[in-house]
Each structure stands twice: as structure tokens, then as C-alpha cells.
């Protein structure tokens, strides 16, 4: 019995030492060497989000880098269209989240291929005030390889794509992810 206990003791001490050692070593073993920029790739997780400039309904130019690199804010990109019912479900959530995190995180709604007039009418009818960007020629939609609507992309303070969620998401999920990005 004593021999068995001794063997177990050796196994547990060895496992503890190796485990703790690996945790310590791997802290620096695979340093984050930085993402590689890409210009055209679908689902650009882990890489720098492709930069773009689009105009709001008021004609103001919005550039992604102004939020991430210049202001150090996480950004939520929501790709949507007025004809997409699941998109319409979550738009009030983005409205509320934008108000809650104004100045700390940016929420940008990127429309898919519709006219400024159609977007404007939709925004007025639904009381949407967060930045809705027109992408009439699909440049940014194609840049991000958007195939399904809605698609929501979470970008961290350094401009790296952290997560892509496809389909309707709840307000709680949006807030949860923003909090994680603010804490990271």
C-alpha cells in the first residue's frame, strides 16, 4: 500500500510540475506576432480588418481606421438590408447598444447594395440613429466576403477581426462581446 501511495505521489508531483511549467513556458512560447493584413478574404478572423471608407446617410465619410487605430475603440460591423427580416429584428438592438456604448465602441450598419433613399426611408420609419452606411456598389460587402445576411463582425481596438456571427443575434450577445473587447 505504501509503495502504491509513493507511486501516486510521484505521478501527481510530476504532472503538477510539468503542467505548471508548460503554463509558464507557453505564456511566452507562442507570442502574438501580429496579424497579417489581407485585402480580400471571406471571414477574416484573426487578421486585420480590411479598411474602408463609406458615407453615412448624411453624406459624412466614415473610415474604419478612424475608430480602431486612431481612437482605440472596438467596432461592430453589421451587414444588413431592408428586405432582410432577420436583419430588421436585430436593428433596434444595435440602436440601443450604440447609445449605451457611444464614445467607447462604434456600431456601424453597412447596407447591402440599396439606395441611400431606401435606407433613409427605412431608418426614419424605424427611428434608427446609429451610423448606417450605404454600399451601393457592394465594395465593402465583397471585401468582407459577405454571403449571408445578417452578418455581424466584431473588431478589437487594434483593428483585428475577433469574431464573425452569422444570423440574428440578441442585444445581450452584442453587449457581451463589446464588454469582452473593451476588457481585452
Amino acid at each position, binding site marked *: 500500500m505504501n509503495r502504491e501511495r509513493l507511486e501516486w505521489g510521484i505521478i*501527481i508531483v510530476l504532472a503538477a510540475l510539468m503542467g505548471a511549467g*508548460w503554463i509558464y513556458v507557453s505564456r511566452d512560447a507562442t507570442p502574438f506576432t501580429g*496579424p497579417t493584413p*489581407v485585402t480580400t478574404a471571406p471571414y477574416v478572423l484573426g487578421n486585420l480588418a480590411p479598411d474602408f471608407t463609406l458615407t453615412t446617410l448624411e453624406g459624412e465619410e466614415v473610415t474604419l481606421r478612424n475608430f480602431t487605430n486612431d481612437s482605440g475603440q472596438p467596432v461592430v460591423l453589421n451587414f444588413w438590408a431592408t428586405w432582410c427580416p432577420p436583419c430588421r429584428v436585430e436593428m433596434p438592438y444595435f440602436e440601443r447598444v450604440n447609445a449605451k456604448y457611444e464614445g467607447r465602441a462604434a456600431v456601424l450598419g453597412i447596407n447591402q447594395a440599396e439606395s441611400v433613399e431606401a435606407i433613409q426611408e427605412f431608418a426614419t420609419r424605424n427611428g434608427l440613429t446609429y451610423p448606417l452606411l450605404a454600399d451601393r456598389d457592394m465594395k465593402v460587402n465583397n471585401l468582407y466576403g459577405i454571403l449571408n445576411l445578417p452578418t455581424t463582425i466584431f473588431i478589437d481596438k487594434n483593428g483585428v477581426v475577433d469574431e464573425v456571427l452569422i444570423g*440574428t443575434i*440578441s*442585444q445581450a450577445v452584442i453587449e457581451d462581446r463589446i464588454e469582452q473587447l473593451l476588457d481585452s
Partner: protein
Amino acid sequence: MLPYINLGSIGFPTAPLVYIIGAWVSLYVVDRAARRLELDAETIYSLAAATLISGFVGARLTFVLLHWSSFDDNLLGILWPLNSGYSGVGGVLFAAAATYFYARWKRLDLWTVLDALAPGIISWLIFTSLADFLGGPGFGALTSLPWGIEQYGVQRHPVQIYEILVGLASLGVWWLATQPERRSLDGRAFLMTTAVYAGGRLFVEAFRDNAWYTTNGLHVVQIISFVIMLGSLLLLAWRSSYSPVKPATES
């Protein structure tokens, strides 16, 4: 890698499909494990189903409670959409509670039950890794190793594939530990499988890029795995030393 399967104009999100298949496979595996251990397969299957459902409901309810301010004016939001918004910790706690109380209700020995559930739990974790690989947020660290996979224009560690390999190795350990001539101690197969899986995850988590870190840069999942691995080994040592050992059966 493949977040959506588009069939004509209809798109199916991959991860939820993998989770549904994973649930079915895990229950099937538990059924087979119960038969291998010569237990009442029907009762163990019901227990596993209760565990799975409790885990799902618990994960959702915990998330809702943690974010109640987002749900209190939108109660329907608790039920839909369900494609995101779960708490892993809540799911595990509810599933563990369901296992414990169901086993007590049916007067089953908890260690025997855990021996039968172990391959189902590992199968579920394997499918979780697969869902993460196909459509989830996880991705590996940059690498130039030949088995690195091309993701989004750069070469990365296939960290979820490593996780799947760890899961398969754990299933192998469970299989060996449940050979008739080795079944001398209830709970041994569960504890050995858990220790091997936790140790493996401790190792491969180092190659994840968007990991969950402590403020001083340690991987949180590694620390959790470390605690589970040591806990399993300590319980194994304690049970081996103090529990009555059953005579092994002949194969």
C-alpha cells in the same frame, strides 16, 4: 472555414448543425458505453439526455440572468434567437446537478454513472471543437510548421484539430480502462479519461491565438485544465488507496 452551407438560396449555419449531430452521437456513445459496462442502458441513456437538456437550458438561463438588463423589456428574446448567447460555466453546473440528482433519484452509483457518461462527454467536446473549427471564433497561432492550415491568407496551428486528437486519445484511454480485466474500481475509467483530456487540453491550448488570458498573460483554459487534471489524479490516487477494489472480471 465553413460557417454556412448554402443550398441554393437557403443557407444553413454549420456550427448549430454540428452541435445537433454531436448531441445525437454523444447519446448513442453513452448507450453503447452503458452496454459495455453491463449497466441498465435505458436508465443511463435517460440520465444522459437529462444531463444534455439541463446543460443546454442552464447555459441559456445563466446567460440571460447575467445579461438581464437586455432581456427584461424583451422576454421573447430569451427564446429566440438561439444561435448565440450561452454561458459555458452555467451549462456545466446545470448538467452536473442534473447528473447528480437523477442518479440519486434512480439510486445509481455516481462513479458507475460517470464511467458510462465519460465517452459521451468527450464525444460532445470533440463535436464542440469541430463546430468551432468550421464556424466558430477560435483560431490557432501563426506557424510555419508543415501541418499548419491556411486560414484567411495565413498559416495557423489547427488548434481545434489538436483538441479533437486529444479527445480521441481520451476515448482510447476510456476503452482501455474499461477492458473487463481492468474494471476493478468504479470511477477509474472516468477519472483517467478526464485526467488525460484535461492534460491534453492544457498542452494544446498554448497554440490558440485568441485565447482567454489572465492579466499577467497566462491562459485561463490552461489553468482550469491544470486544476481538473490534478483533481482527477488526486481522486484516482485516493480511490485506489482507500476504496474497496472489485475483483476484475475475465474477458
